[in-house]
């Protein structure tokens, strides 16, 4: 909706409708790369960065598509541009900041098929956010993704040391944990409602 305040949009994407725990976007890296807190941080930050880039790209592509009245090409152009943007970021990072590349580089290709990125681009379009609102939304979504994956990694590191029944090892237990996290995040609902 136009007219939502920037801080509310940020809070909404960050906590209330957390991309991972309430909207189920980016579940693959959430379950796959949450074994260690360090890697989870890197994955989260890399994703947040790519979210920001693709949100900006998606905003301008949508302006062009709407201007020419060819919205039916939205999906194809979003995914193509996001994939190339990630590639470009990867290449320029490799050239200009090898240190950063060594930390985040291996995660970048993984992110292209992360549905949180495409989901962000689609949602900001559906909600008809303007440019600054889109920026705030993408920052919130990136922060929310990072928060969720780091929390999950923290829980799983602790769980490594716990005795669990052998049938529940691995994905089954991770999903149960994710369910509990998601349940606790539901407590944030209502933050923006009423006065």
């Amino acid at each position, binding site marked *: 909706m136009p007219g939502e305040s920037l801080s509310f949009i940020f809070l909404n994407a960050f906590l209330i409708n957390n991309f991972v725990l309430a909207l*189920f976007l980016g579940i693959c890296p959430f379950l796959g790369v949450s074994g260690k807190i360090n890697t989870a941080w890197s994955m989260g930050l890399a994703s947040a960065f790519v979210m920001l880039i693709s949100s900006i790209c998606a905003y301008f592509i949508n302006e062009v598509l709407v201007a020419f009245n060819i919205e039916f090409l939205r999906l194809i152009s979003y995914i*193509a541009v996001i*994939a190339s943007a990630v590639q470009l970021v990867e290449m320029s990072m490799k050239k200009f900041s090898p240190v950063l590349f060594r930390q985040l580089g291996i995660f970048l290709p993984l992110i292209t098929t992360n*549905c949180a990125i495409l989901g962000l681009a689609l*949602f900001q379009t559906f909600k008809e956010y303007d440019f600054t609102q889109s920026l705030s939304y993408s920052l919130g979504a990136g922060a929310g993704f990072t928060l969720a994956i780091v929390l999950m990694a923290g829980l799983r590191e602790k769980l490594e040391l716990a005795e669990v029944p052998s049938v529940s090892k*691995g994905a089954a237990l991770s999903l149960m944990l994710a369910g509990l996290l998601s349940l606790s995040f539901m407590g944030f609902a209502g933050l923006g409602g009423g006065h």
Partner: protein
Amino acid sequence: MSQNKTTAVTMDDFLSGIWRENPVFVMLLGMCPVLAVTNSVINALAMGLATTFVLLGSSAIISLLRHWIPKEVRIATYIVIIATFVTIIDYAIQAISLELYNALGAFIQLIVANCIILGRAEAHASRQPLLKTLTNGLGMGIGFTIALLALGSVRELLGNGSLLGHDIFGAHFEPWVVMILPPGGFFVLGAWLLLFNYIREVKKQKRLAESRAASGTTARALV
């Protein structure tokens, strides 16, 4: 994987996606739609069929074009082909039922980012002839749909007391609302995985006991 051994279509091509390599329960792929749209049976079914359609369509085209696509641009080509089929199904669903379209929301368009489809394109469709690819894709699609239905039916039954919109438990049933909320998705999928792990464990124990018994008898026979 019996990928390069034979080009003949076997029953195994079809069945592997349904059970042994089930994309959701075994390979844990494409989890986003699995969790997000399974709050009712009808949504789960629609999502499963839409994904199967995209899987079959994109696999067919990729398999037909496999000799012409240069290796360097294959991913870009696959993504464009997949996105085309997703756009097609997106418009088809809008034409069939606006209500269903609104219920599934952005998740129809997010089929593009479903790793099952890109994974199939890369691992199977780009190497196999048309018929074999289609058989395998159909198996995968059905396996995915079954998984979605397994989640959708449990969540609708417990969370709403109904199946396909028909009341099952009667008026006295107090629905477990949490089941159709986001946490319910995680819990139900976790529970299914627990069940499968348990079955696998029991089978393993049985096999172990059998082989021990068998080795025991041979040992005794030797004595």
